[in-house]
């Protein structure tokens, strides 16, 4: 099994991916900046303000949506470590920015950009196995009135029992890429979300053959996170508090009935420690 990170392997359809793929293959390269064919759940205006779009500079003034991320506090964004690499090469902080405040990308009436100052990759991250896939983006300035998300505590097993429903959300293409093949992009401009259920470690390990302690799996029939959702959260809401349990990391295909999606497990002590040390 060749495991690839989620922003590599999958695009962001958090939806009925199989139907999507069939429909999406017919889309020509110039079409549909806001695809709605797939019937996925587009989130309401003002939702999930703690989720940001991590964007990569690709030209003088050209940027692209690259990954998801979450606001831990005014200066720190949590995302996946593999989002710090472009084609295996580390990305300079000056080429990363985040889009904050709006579920609709580029809608400057409701959102704004903040540049990255530094990218802090988890030192125990292994690019070839995606083990310990976490990174913190240090922002160049504070986000005023930031909406933040709490992370689940170190060693906690809360919200992680098999079958527990968790939400994941993001902007990404609704089209999956096969390795080496360029399929036209299909980025939605508005964030989408989907509910998946935690899969037991043993089940997930049997699917993939290997699963690290710092990984947690989730799945639901026909639903999954996908490419471009990388770095985004696996989360729930308790009372008025948003709680993040995982970081979108990797998986085989998208919504493949035989493979669950793999997330970085935040409660893993190594991951918890990395986050705590870097968010003073």
């Amino acid at each position, binding site marked *: 099994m060749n495991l*690839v990170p989620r922003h*590599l392997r999958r695009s962001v359809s958090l939806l009925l991916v199989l139907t999507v793929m069939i429909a999406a293959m*017919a889309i020509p390269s110039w*079409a549909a900046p806001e695809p709605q064919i797939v019937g996925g759940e587009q989130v309401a205006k003002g939702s999930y303000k703690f989720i940001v779009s991590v964007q990569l500079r*690709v030209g003088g003034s050209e940027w692209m949506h690259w990954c998801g991320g979450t606001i831990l506090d005014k200066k720190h964004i949590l995302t996946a470590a593999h989002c710090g690499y*472009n084609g295996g090469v580390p990305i*300079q902080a000056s*080429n990363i920015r985040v889009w904050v405040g709006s579920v609709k990308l580029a809608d*400057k009436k409701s959102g704004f950009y903040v540049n990255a100052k530094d990218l802090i990759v988890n030192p125990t991250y292994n690019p070839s196995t995606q083990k310990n896939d976490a990174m913190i983006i240090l922002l160049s300035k504070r986000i005023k009135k930031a909406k933040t998300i709490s992370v689940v505590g170190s060693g906690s097993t809360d919200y992680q029992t098999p079958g527990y429903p968790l939400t994941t959300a993001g902007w990404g293409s609704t089209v999956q890429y096969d390795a080496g093949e360029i399929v036209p992009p299909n980025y939605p401009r508005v964030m989408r979300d989907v509910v998946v259920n935690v899969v037991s470690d043993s089940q997930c390990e049997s699917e993939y053959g290997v699963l690290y302690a710092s990984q947690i799996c989730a799945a639901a029939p026909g639903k999954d996170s996908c490419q471009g959702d990388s770095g985004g959260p696996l989360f729930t809401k308790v009372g008025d508090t948003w709680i993040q349990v995982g970081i979108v990391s990797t998986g085989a295909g998208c919504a493949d009935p035989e493979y669950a999606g793999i997330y970085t497990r935040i409660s893993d002590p190594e991951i918890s420690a990395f986050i705590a040390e870097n968010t003073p």
Partner: protein
Amino acid sequence: MESRGGEFLDLVRERVVIYDGAMGASILDLNLDAAGYGGIEGCNEYLVFHNPSIIENIHAAFLEAGVDVLETDTFGGSRIKLEEYGLGDRTYEQNRAAAELARRVAAEFSTPGRTRFVAGSIGPTGLLPASEDPLLGNARFEEVVDLFREQVRGLADGGVDVFIIETTQDILELRAAIRAVIEDRERVGRRIPIQAQVTLDTSGRMLLGTDIAAVLAILEAQPVDIIGLNCSTGPDLMREPARYLGEYSTRPVSVIPNAGIPQNVNGRAVFPLQPDELAVQLRQMVEEFGIGIVGGCCGTTPEHLRRVVEEIGIRPAPIRPAKKLPNIASMTRAVSLFQDPGPMIVGERVNTLGSRKMKRLALGDDYDGMLDIAREQVDEGAHALDVCVAMTERTDERDMLRKLVKKLALTVEAPLVLDSTEPDVLRAALEQYPGRAVVNSVNMENGRARIDAILPHAVANGAAVVAMTIDEVGMAKTAARKLEVAQAIHQIIVGDYGLDPEALIFDTLTFPLSTGEEEFTRSALETIEGIRLIEDALPGVLTILGISNVSFGLNPVARKVVNAVFLYHAVAAGLDLAIVHPSHVMPLAEIDPLERELAEDLVLARRPDALPRLVEHFEGRAETADAATPDVLAEMDVATRLHYRILHRKKDGIEQDIDEAVAERDPVDVLNNVLLPAMKEVGDKFGSGELILPFVLQSAEAMKRAVAQLEKYLEREEGVSKGTVVLATVFGDVHDIGKNLVNTILTNNGYTVHDLGKQVPVNRIIEKAVETNATAIGLSALLVSTSKQMPLAVKELHHAGLAFPVIIGGAAINRAYAHRTLFVGEGEPYAPGVFYAKDAFEGLALMDQLSDPQRRSALVEQTIRDAESAVQRPGREAFSVPAAAASEERSATPVVSPPVPPFWGVREMSDVTLRAVWPHLDTKTLFRLHWGGKGVRDGAWDDLREGDFEPRLARMERETERDGWLQPRVRYGYFPANAEGNAVVIYAPEDPDREIARFTFPRQPARERLCLADYYVPVGQGVKDVAVFQIVTVGERATRHAEELQLHGEYSEAFFSHGLSVQSAEGLAEMAHQRIRAELGMAEDQGKRYSWGYPSCPDLAQHVIVDQLLDIGEIGVRLTEGFQFDPEQSTAALVVTHPEARYFALANVDPARAERGEA
């Protein structure tokens, strides 16, 4: 400083020019770390200090690829951008250094025969001055201009040859950058050209919503040299806006796309477009749309550009239209000053001097309330809005108008007419308004002082100007005085300030007729006559009137009548714009004949007692004078009443009428036979000019309420949708009534309808169809001009390999048009089909067939068959006579006795020299059509003809005679012939009983039923007529000659030579015809010459028979597979000697009617 700006523009005028590729992305590819950037990580501009060799290498790689123009490494070189890296103080230095560096590299690669140029790149500041964004939208225009000044100075002093202002997202910011360049010209002492480029998103609009038509209207009014698009998307998404610019921009057009939209492929950010694809797509845009400057933006590498250079090669610059579109624009869209039907309606209520409500809101700083008035006016049909906030109570007119204008730009789509008497107020408003506004107004009350105070701002901001006919003597009251003042104003504004006449709008002044003073009794008539005189004497200028002042002081009911009569006569005299309250205008047809007469007596000063008679008639009549109406309605049966209500816009009570109607008859019957015919009558009256747009909209509202009520009775098929339709009124067209009806009908019959509204660009239609996996696309257009979008949409669908059937309809469309639209290439139909729906119900019937797979394929096949047989496609098959003219019965053309030929058989004409051809040259066609003079008018045309074309022709004639690259040859023959039905039968010259060939010609299906065969003596009369054929050529050296010139870079000479050669062949044909007439002893004007491919003899395949008869190879001509002659400078004809012979068309279409959509 050496000036290469002129040389650069010469190159642009001469051939397609190629820019370099990505700078920013090329630097990113190096993946420099902080040290690589000299400690200022991510600042590309700093590299010209820290490590210039990186930039030099990038420049050199592009020049090696063969590009003509380098862009400096200054995209982020404005002070505000450099400030982000703490380099603000080095702005001038950085730009100068980057320009000098690029110039150095360009010089290394330049040769005496080929200069490489340097474009000073100016990217966006990141501010959005037209927006209300709390961070980005605060800067005033002048402040944004300041942000660009140092960059412009540095680039100019560093020696750039052109400024490229690029990737602009806010059109107001672009204007600020242009202003910075213009204001620096005096300092630098040379004219560095400006290339102004905007960035559109995938929906074809700029970030703040500006569409391409608005972009063009705004930039055509700015002193820029090149207009174009760059970045953001790949070339495929730029096709539609590029086509628009290519078709309408008078300035050369540039297209510099990204290598597609970046994608995340296996964790790598990738620009997907490969070099070959980019090159091919750019070439297609050059060929199809007349794009003159291309290059690459983000993601384009030297390899991309190498392929572009190869693919484009050396191509002559496309010819630009000579005349600008007469458009003004809001921030979002353009509106033509010439409305058809006229006039352009300027809403009068956003005016503190004319509306008490507006004044109250303005005094209370209630901007939302003022915006509501503006929106109402637009909803009621205003094309533009007059905006005035002058008040004696306040002194902050300038700040108020600036603030209101900013909000209006972001709120209403109608362009603004900025109404103030204060130059500084107008200036502030003009500099805040992103669109192309109209200034209202100037006059000569104090000589030219006011004009001199306002015009510089109007010109700098690209505005059109209203000028009132007032001078030092006072307000011009007679038509002659109005003209006199207008001429004086024209002299200054057009003569001294160089404003286009189409941007000068005269207000001939409206005076109240209610005073009864002798002085004013003729004032309305003089105003109307003044319009006529001014529009006759000053070609191009427009006229405007405030209408309601004419009835000031009269009873409100009388006012409406007098206003309507005055407006009607003013429009008839040529009035272009009317300032009115759109919903208060009454259509003339609705005025009681007696009241109309009374009003006309007054307005047209037809009788001395007109005013007292009118006043007496309306005495005591209150505004609710509609009292008569209910009585009228009460007497009608319900169907007539519904019809009346829709036609006369009486929507109140229409629901009850519907209830009553469905009690008597089937709801579908009510819709089909009551409501729809009423709406059709509204449409017809609109088309004929009896109704203006606001009334049509009000009728539509009545219709909408009627249909909403009717829907309660219509059976709705619940559950599964029968299919999905994407509906749109095409780009440029604001008429959506017919389309809305289609929506209603389809929705009520079980279809899911996605109605994209009006003015929809092709891109968006296609996107939506893909997104919804539509069963079909429905397109509507009212105007002939906008219906051209339909074939375009079909071609784009075809180009993209999509399979959506397209249904088209609307007043301008007919079945024949749909047939032509079906073909996307030479004889190639758009496989999914293009269908014509004459009304909503035919649309429904088509949808029912298209959504049924079995019936669908039969429908598509049948439609393609019909279209193929309907569209005459010469050269593909023998011409078949249209069914309607199946009868071959001869027309009434008399039989005349034939002339006697000097010989029978075929010869080559002797003594054919160029000198003999010249007198027969049609110079008008040569100059206008072949030499690109089309559209040049008036003085400019005289200058071009006398100053260039005529001396050029004289020189070329001399040189051609000397060099012999045109070699005229003529072969012609006389054959015995007779008519038989629709055919001309040709007999052997040596044996007049033996048929050797036969030409069948089409016969007019109606009218005089003419056919070329009728010009010959019929068979069986014992007399043989004479059929004369000729073929002429100026030889294959002509083509070679043009090719050689091209090869040597003499592009314009090649162009002119080609034109001359083609037109010489025509002249030669005319000369040969004259000789034949002489040989036959005929008068110089007897008979006609018919070439194949024209309506009366359409079948090019008959050239084969001509070849058999004349043996065209003898003079070096051969036929191609498409039955064209090679060389192309050859033409054949059938010379008809019959004295009544004339040219005729086959189809019975009156072009004037077709233009109004009545065909």
